[in-house]
């Protein structure tokens, strides 16, 4: 008897969990990640005593309040900013593989940051006084913004984005930014070289409240503003013409998205160097679980991005304790296979 292979009825969408449930779960995950991040570390510390001030030693107090806590806050902000800017960029390019780190926006932002570190002293004192600690983040934002604008111009024609063009243009832009960054390093003096080296390590090591203060305003602004674009990005998924027909101010949505991507990437790069793959993996996982609707996706990406980066940072700190891995290595090891998996599943995307 031969089994007859008949085509099965097309699968119905298995009930996606309610967005509220997903958010609650992600918030819980973030809380757990924060707890683990706070309690795990190279130094034996009485965290509880330090937090609640019950006769903790000065050493414990410093470890918790001046080392682990700012690192935790910075990690959460950077993770949220990277994941949200990935989701925004994927919405803008209508492609799940777009990520600021991969297509040169991170490199452009990095060039901006390096320019600010090396040439910042040449700025008029009045400008420096106003920009203050935000000089490097703002310069990174400007670098990321210019890169994204160039990239969109090159890769998108008549509302359609060629994935191949975008990735190749990203390689060219990253190479150019890398070369100019090299020139800056050549020009830098000893003190600036030290700054550049620490910054270029691409990790959350050396997080302090000053860095949080420098990066937080831009990142928080993006996290709060992104959901406003959700409906516009949903419409863009049907194509620019269809979005226009549905009353969406397409050009405004695109410009605002580019600005937000550049701001979040710039601020994240400025305080933590280049951390890859969070922007691809987090939105992709969320689309699998809760669907692609940006109204839920953007806030959820912020929560999951924060949790993922805190956990990755905790791993980076404890795997080779008392030394630590650069966090970029951890996210790449976890993220690159996921990226390849998406690529294999959706090979047709590249043949645009």
């Amino acid at each position, binding site marked *: 008897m031969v089994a007859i292979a008949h085509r099965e009825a*097309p*699968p*119905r*969408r298995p009930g996606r969990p309610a967005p509220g449930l997903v958010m609650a779960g992600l918030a819980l995950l973030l809380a757990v990640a924060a707890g683990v991040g706070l309690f795990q570390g190279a130094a034996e510390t009485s965290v509880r005593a330090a937090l609640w001030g019950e006769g903790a030693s000065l050493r414990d107090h410093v470890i918790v309040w001046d080392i682990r806590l700012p690192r935790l806050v910075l990690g959460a902000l950077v993770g949220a900013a990277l994941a949200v800017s990935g989701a925004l960029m994927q919405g803008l390019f*209508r*492609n*799940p593989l777009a990520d600021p780190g991969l297509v040169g926006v991170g490199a452009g932002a990095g060039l901006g940051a390096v320019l600010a570190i090396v040439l910042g002293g040449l700025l008029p004192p009045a400008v420096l006084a106003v920009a203050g600690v935000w000089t490097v983040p703002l310069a990174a934002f400007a670098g990321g913004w210019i890169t994204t604008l160039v990239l969109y111009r090159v890769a998108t024609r008549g509302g359609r984005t060629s994935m191949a063009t975008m990735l190749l243009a990203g390689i060219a832009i990253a190479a150019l930014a890398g070369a100019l960054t090299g020139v800056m390093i050549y020009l830098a003096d000893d003190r600036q070289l030290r700054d550049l080296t620490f910054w270029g390590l691409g990790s959350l090591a050396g997080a302090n409240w000053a860095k949080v203060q420098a990066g937080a305003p831009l990142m928080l602004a993006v996290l709060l503003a992104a959901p406003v674009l959700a*409906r516009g990005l*949903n*419409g*863009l*998924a*049907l*194509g620019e*013409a*269809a979005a*226009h*027909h*549905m*009353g*969406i*101010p*397409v050009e405004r949505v695109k410009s605002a998205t580019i600005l937000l991507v550049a701001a979040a990437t710039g601020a994240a790069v400025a305080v933590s160097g280049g951390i890859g793959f969070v922007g691809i993996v987090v939105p992709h996982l969320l*689309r699998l679980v809760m*669907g*692609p*609707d940006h109204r839920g996706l953007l806030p959820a990406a912020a929560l999951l991005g924060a949790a993922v980066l805190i956990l990755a940072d905790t791993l980076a700190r404890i795997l080779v304790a008392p030394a630590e891995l650069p966090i970029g290595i951890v996210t790449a090891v976890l993220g690159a296979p996921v990226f390849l998996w998406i690529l294999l599943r959706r090979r047709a995307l590249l043949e645009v």
Partner: protein
Amino acid sequence: MLTATDIHLSLGGRPVLNGVDFTARPGQITAIVGPNGSGKTTLLRALTGELRPRGAITLDGQDCARLPPAEMAARRAVLPQAGAVAFPFTLREVVQMGLSAGLSAARPEVVGQALRAVDLAAHADRLFQELSGGEQARGHLARALAQVWEPVVAGVPRWLFLDEPVASLDIGHQLQVMALMADYAARGGGVIAVMHDLNLTAMFAAQITLLNRGRVEAAGPPGAVLADRPLSRAYGTALRVNVTPPPGHVFVLPQTAAAV
């Protein structure tokens, strides 16, 4: 009423529309026909505001170029020729997007009604990307329909702009969609459709504009436009229009004769 006067438009330096006049009234289907490359889709894209041509286009007395996108979206919905959807949205979510762009946004039941109207109610929770070509075309039609669900609001007609709404459909669904368009028009809405199938056009359209190389070859009711001379000139081939006799009359086609 939609009026376009003396429309000129070039794409990539090549003139596509040369002084086209076009009128459509609510309450009936107005079809745009013509050979490939005659400017049908370009005319429709100009009428929807997607392209900005030279000439004047007014929708119920208002200059289309001055209406903001949200206002236009409340007045008319557009079905493009083909529309790939990025990201795994379900059919229901896509139709929901159309609904939220129009005036019936507060009535969630419209999504199901629009899907029933295009015979896709059973597929609401499938991923749009996994639907067949014909199902996707009907899914987009449901989205457009949901956007302007009520054909008349406060005495002002809503409009459907459809680019080849039946091109990828089987004959059963072709007739179903044409009937749906006729029903929308009968309830007071305006329907403008780019069509390839001249037989379906003759069956359902009240007014036809025949384009030929960016100009209007003929415009008017089917009897006047679908005639031997204009059709032969536009399509560049000798065409003959036929009429079947009234019911009950037997007739014989001599073309069917073969040597015995």
